[in-house]
């Protein structure tokens, strides 16, 4: 794959990696704005079925927009494309990109199932295109801090760890301002609920920290009478470090940015490592620091911060930047299709165990 990537260089454009963005909803816009800020990336076009999203992309500075991603892929000469479409379109988008010899950076989950991921990756392999996956937690400064502290051995052996990721999902919180999208609550379209939307990030970051994981037990829940789970709890074991881990994710909790409810704790022999200790302490102070840094970078010509005050958006920038850097260098993306598929496999095992336990008292939870 890497040799195939290298064989297509130099890039299509003179000013850098020619990039298209397929899907410019909220996360697609984050990718678009990130890419527009990258010196070595030439954003050629964006596609979205929603006119208001295309207008937003145009206001952000993208030269051309399309209402169909297949048309964009056929019309533009690209080196890479960001696939920020709903999961049910990922496989098709990758296939279309493969037909056009375009590397892809795919929003998580890579696919709706590991079986679909296999087909997607086989298509990519045959076409010789690279597949990166947007698993951003490992690019967040708090997670990087936890990993660094853990690997420095500051707490010794870690027998137990826990991770929680909560947000308000597609239904949001009051006041109601937008129609909630239907696909995130449609198992056929999304592949699942919170476990695929949020848990998938947690699986990825936990394997990044502890190595291979075994899923031991799981339960899912729905706080409303919705077609997919909006909460999941998974019991894991990391054989290499002999760490027992609990993972809880849910789309049931109202969220007000910039507060983001992601908690990771490693309980070690000599103490605790918490991601909270590695977060920017104060939004305003962080914004002021980034502003000063960016002003200074204009003078020195060095790279400036992108989404500086918001570490979770900055992580998306870093993930895409790392992907683009790998493509430019003809290397395998740092988080690639295998990682994306691996997280899907863990989620699927969790679903199976939760389904197996449906008759047990613990797993039977009343809705509403």
């Amino acid at each position, binding site marked *: 794959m890497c040799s195939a990537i290298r064989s297509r260089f130099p890039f299509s454009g003179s000013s850098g990696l020619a990039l298209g963005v397929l899907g410019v909803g909220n996360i697609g*816009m984050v990718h678009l704005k990130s890419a527009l*800020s990258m010196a070595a990336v030439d954003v050629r076009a964006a596609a979205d079925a929603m006119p208001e999203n295309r207008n937003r992309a145009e206001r952000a500075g993208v030269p051309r927009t399309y209402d169909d991603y297949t048309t964009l892929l056929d019309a533009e000469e690209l080196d890479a494309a960001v696939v920020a479409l709903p999961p049910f379109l990922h496989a098709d988008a990758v296939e279309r990109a493969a037909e056009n010899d375009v590397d892809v950076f795919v929003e998580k989950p890579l696919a709706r199932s590991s079986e679909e991921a296999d087909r997607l990756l086989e298509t990519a392999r045959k076409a010789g295109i690279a597949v990166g996956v947007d698993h951003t937690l490992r690019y967040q400064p708090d997670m990087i801090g936890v990993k660094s502290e853990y690997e420095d051995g500051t707490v010794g052996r870690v027998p137990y760890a826990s991770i929680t990721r909560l947000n308000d999902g597609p*239904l949001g919180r009051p*006041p109601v301002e937008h129609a909630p999208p239907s696909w995130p609550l449609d198992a056929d379209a999304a592949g699942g609920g919170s476990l695929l939307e949020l848990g998938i990030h947690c699986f990825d970051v936990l394997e990044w920290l502890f190595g291979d994981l075994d899923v031991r037990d799981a339960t899912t829940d729905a706080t409303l009478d919705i077609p997919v789970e909006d909460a999941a709890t998974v019991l894991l074991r990391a054989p290499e470090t002999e760490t027992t881990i609990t993972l809880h994710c849910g789309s049931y909790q109202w969220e007000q940015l910039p507060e983001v409810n992601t908690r990771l704790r490693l309980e070690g022999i000599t103490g605790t490592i918490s991601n909270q200790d590695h977060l920017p302490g104060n939004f*305003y102070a962080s*914004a002021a620091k980034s502003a000063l840094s*960016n*002003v200074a970078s204009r003078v020195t010509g060095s790279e400036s911060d992108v989404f500086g005050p918001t570490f979770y*958006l900055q992580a998306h920038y870093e993930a895409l930047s790392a992907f683009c850097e790998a493509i430019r260098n003809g290397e395998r993306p740092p988080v690639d299709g295998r990682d994306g598929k691996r997280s899907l496999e863990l989620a699927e095992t969790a679903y199976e165990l939760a389904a197996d336990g449906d008759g047990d008292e613990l797993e039977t939870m009343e809705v*509403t």
Partner: protein
Amino acid sequence: MTGESVVRGTVVEAGESTNDTDIDADTTDGTEPRDLLDGRGGDGDNAPIRRWNPDLDARMAAFESSVEHVLSPILDALSTAGPGRITLVPDTHYPFHPSTGMVTDPALVGATLSLLDDRTDAELAVAGTSSAAIAFERTTDYLGYPSLVARTGAELVDCSDDDLERERYVLTNDDHAVAVSVPVPLRESAVIAVPTLRPTDAGTFAGGRRTLARLVDAVADSAATAVAATHAIDPRGSLLDATTAYGESPYAANALFSGPTPAVDTLGASLLGQSSIADRTRAAELEAMGTTDGAGEISTVRVTPVGTAADASGVDFEQHLATLRERLDGASLPPSDATHPAVSAAYRLYAAVGGDAVPPQLDARGGH
């Protein structure tokens, strides 16, 4: 201005457990309903239940006695009059979780339907409407209404259905005329509004009249439409769900109120600490159209404790009301921005100074 209006109030308390109630054994999962008493404090008193119980059957069972007490005059009148159809109009504006207080608890609707089914021979219905944000069917599905209404054979009626016959109703006097188009099934039904104790986006009380106003078509302002809709539909009264109220956050108030819809609205607004003189004056002005007693809404509302709230050995109802006022004073919904307005402003300043990208969450609200 006329004399005082009487609203009946009660507290759903621990003493009204499933132990004291003859429960329909048809639970949703075949298990025995759980006892709401499990939330009782350790001091052995009859303090109101504070813990949300996700078991719909347990909540219904716990509400039934309180609903019977508080709704007694309306139930008696309906039993005597024998209307062919009775329609409940709960707050189902969006599928927020009932434990937030942002919608009427479906269990309260279920308990009321059950009582009406026992006490009358009327056909039963639950009415609501679709909005620009979400279809009524989707909201009621997520809130679990289909299985709930199936217990009593009640019908779910979407008043935005184009196939529903409508009737024009004009509320007028010498100075004003307000026209509303009302679904005929509502005009031909005995209606009970079942609002929840929460503020609207605009900061007013989302009471019975505003809940009814959502079911009619009109071009008048919201206060006028609410008054005209109430006149047109002529509800038998309101049952105010204050089991969980929303002030600036949810509060397990465990209270129910019932009485004439304008009077209950006046009480609800006062409990939320709202004294929007302009709104109430406008409403009162219109309320007076064609009616001699409508202006009672701005005269004194007396709350008569009933059921266990009237029992000297029960909770101190006056104190309960005082606590309710204190906890809900200044009720308002969270800021509309995905981020807190102060943070949004800071981010925009930062982006302008530092030359960074603005996150799409701010873009969507014109944040450049």
